């Protein structure tokens, strides 16, 4: 029993060890550009946590990463490596944008859910291809999803810049130019901010904060996924197939069916990744729509140990890093890229530390087994 506790603790603390290592390593880099690492990290913290609106921005930053981390983790659970969250969320966001501007005159309580549903279906659509290829033709999902990421990117560029380009933009003469974007999404499909709700509790957020209801949706979804994975027969089968497809097959679970269901679920969640930005901030989809959440999601899932609650924490950490980056750039003149390096180091050290931990735990296990 004592040994189990030790293993548990190691598992919980390994991401924290990893983070500390990453901080130490990036201190060296900060030193190399002639800045004081302590000052840099202090500024990051101070800038991020001194004001309530800054915390809200962190949570807003974390929202897409929670969805993305969850999507990746569902793939991991069933033993599949969904690198394609990136492409899936772009397609999902595009579908949402399309349904958001093309359908007019619906009340918000129908239109918004419809838009969210289209995003889910878009993500799933983009997940069908790799999982079909995997199950029927034996194509490894890593290869096909990477390729599909490129295809999706080019495809939405084509849609945005050509097929669905908003050609009716009014530009005040002599001021700026038109944006390369799709038509604006109807107000009935936009996600409201949380400002009104939070002001009930005396928390007043300024207007430049875009924290919206997708954040609580992400938290609720995490809880739902946690329940599904650990307390339903479906989640049981997902995990069984993920760990040992042969034993699952012998036990009457069809691994292929679980691969399909798991991957589509992963794609469905991936479809939600871009919505907080799309429906809570931009209100339209343009060429500069944020990219890279899918890849960061892999890091979030790794760091969160595929545990939905771990993923929330990891996503918030990454949200904080992004927020802190703005702070050190503004106040210390340290380039934001330093934080990109820090993020990369976090990812690397999480991988290395968890590998070391796994070996150590395996060693402890062996020790235990023989007693």
């Amino acid at each position, binding site marked *: *029993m004592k040994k189990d506790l030790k293993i548990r603790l190691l598992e919980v603390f390994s991401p924290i060890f990893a983070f500390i290592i990453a901080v130490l390593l990036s201190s060296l880099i900060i030193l190399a550009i002639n800045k004081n690492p302590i000052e840099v990290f202090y500024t990051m913290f101070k800038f991020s946590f001194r004001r309530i609106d800054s915390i809200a921005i962190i949570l807003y930053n974390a929202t897409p990463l929670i969805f993305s981390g969850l999507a990746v983790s569902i793939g991991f659970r069933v033993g599949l490596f969904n690198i394609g969250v990136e492409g899936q969320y772009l397609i999902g966001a595009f579908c949402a944008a399309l349904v958001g501007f093309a359908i007019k005159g619906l009340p918000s309580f129908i239109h918004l859910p419809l838009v969210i549903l289209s995003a889910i279906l878009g993500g799933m659509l983009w997940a069908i291809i790799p999982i079909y290829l995997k199950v029927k033709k034996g194509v490894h999902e890593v290869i096909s999803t990477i390729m599909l990421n490129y295809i999706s990117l080019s495809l939405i560029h084509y849609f945005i810049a050509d097929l669905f380009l908003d050609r009716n933009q009014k530009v005040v003469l002599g001021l700026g130019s038109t944006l390369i974007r799709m038509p604006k999404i109807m107000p009935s499909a936009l996600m409201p901010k949380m400002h009104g709700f939070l002001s009930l509790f005396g928390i007043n957020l300024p207007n430049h904060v875009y924290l919206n209801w997708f954040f609580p949706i992400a938290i609720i979804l995490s809880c739902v996924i946690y329940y599904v994975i650990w307390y339903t027969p479906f989640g049981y089968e997902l995990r069984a197939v993920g760990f040992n497809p042969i034993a699952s097959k*012998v036990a009457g679970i069809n691994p292929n069916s679980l691969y399909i269901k798991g991957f589509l679920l992963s794609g469905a969640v991936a479809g939600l990744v871009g919505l907080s930005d799309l429906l809570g901030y931009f209100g339209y989809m343009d060429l500069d729509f944020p990219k890279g959440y899918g890849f960061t999601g892999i890091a979030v899932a790794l760091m969160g140990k595929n545990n939905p609650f771990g993923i929330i924490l990891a996503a918030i950490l990454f949200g904080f890093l992004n927020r802190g980056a703005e702070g050190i750039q503004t106040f210390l003149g340290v380039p934001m890229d330093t934080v990109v390096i820090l993020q990369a180091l976090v990812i690397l050290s999480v991988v290395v530390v968890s590998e070391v931990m796994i070996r150590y735990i395996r060693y402890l296990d062996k*020790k235990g*087994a*023989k*007693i």
Partner: protein
Amino acid sequence: MEKIIKLTNITKKFPGLVANDNINLEIEKGEIHAIVGENGAGKSTLMKILSGLYQPDSGEIYIKGKKVIIRNPRHAIKLGIGMVHQHFMLVSRFTILDNIILGSEKSKAGLIDYELAEKEVTDLLKRYNFELDIHEEVGSLSVGQQQRVEILKVLYRGADILVLDEPTAVLAPQEVKELFINLRKLKEQGKTILFISHKLDEVLEIADTITVLRKGRLIKTLKRNEVKDKSELAELMVGRPVILKYSKEDIKRGKPLIEVKELIVKNESDRRVLNGVSFSVYAGEIYGIAGIEGNGQKELVDSLMGLLSKESGEILLNNVDIKNLNVNEIKRIGVGFISEDRHKEGLVLPMTVWENSVLGYHRDREFGLWYRLNVNRIIEHCDNIIKNFDVRLSSMFIPIKGLSGGNQQKIILGRELIRNPKIIIASQPTRGLDIGASEFVHQLLIKARDEGCAILLISADLEEILALSDRIGVIYNGEIVAEFESKEATPDEIGYYMTGGKRKVEV
């Protein structure tokens, strides 16, 4: 006589366990010295110390009277100690000659001196009476022949002490005989042989001296003629009297519950791996399938469980044609299934014990509905298995990989047998288990038989087949080539058919 190996006070500790506890062992030159013990008794650790894979924590090793520290396997072979592994380390696409010289090739002008190698290896073959064509590819050899190549490999490297780790585990009875002839020949030539085994009959047949290990300690070293019989040795090994013959009730044969008719199964490359197999198993009997592994046993079991589609033929389980049924549906008509490889097929090792206790039955109504597993009920169920099947564990909430092999197997048995199946298909049910756990498994199967269950037992262990079965079918090359009433069967005769002797005329 000269002591070729002397170990004094050898202790090797692993965290939390003493694998070798103060072992004192002397081995005489030119003897066949058997080391017996259950799994985990410390046999392998001791041999790994001798072959340089492990360093002892304390104690001394003397080889040919000189104190040595064996740094690594290469050093061991320099000292004359050659290890013949249980799992062969051969390159199947290479010829015998290539395999033998691999790693110690002698070269001439930068090229391998094949002329010299061929001469040396041929001499070696002559000297020890090995009959092999050295230009044949290793992949096309039988298991017994491959083992001879392994032995030749260490001889070529100049070993005069051969360590054989469970050499008979993979061999048919005839091949065991041939191996023993080779070993005796080697002994005549002055080689010393360390023979690790837990098959007591074989040990008694071949060994001059027997050392018994138990839980890391050396219990006793005896001369062959000091040992009365097998049970004495088994008792030393286990530390208590052991049942070697099971008492079974007289057979009350009922209706046929497993009927296999003209079953033909092809593999991916369109070869018939089962070629017209027919047999029946009746309620109240154990039908054993004897055979060397890879002769279609796995395909037979998979077909019976609906995991493999057949070319033609018919399978009736409990009078139900299973043609269109999957493994779930087959289990629901009262079939309990113990698969051959518990780690690969029977369990999901990283999942907890309680989760594994319902693997395959987790969709049953009693364990929950589609949206909710009834965890409390499953835990209760698991507790039941633990109590009824004597599973020893610290907690059911740990991953099942933390349990010993015997306890893992008990969980599987419990999972499959607690539902009182009418049919049990048990494939290699005691593989890798120690004597105590094997005994437990055997008694469970016999109890099920006495209660009227039809049991199909597939095992590579002929002793197990003979001890449990009422009838025995011998499988060779995808066919049942002979069928015996167990009382009439002798190991020799079964072995004859196992290795491809002619088909027995229908009786």
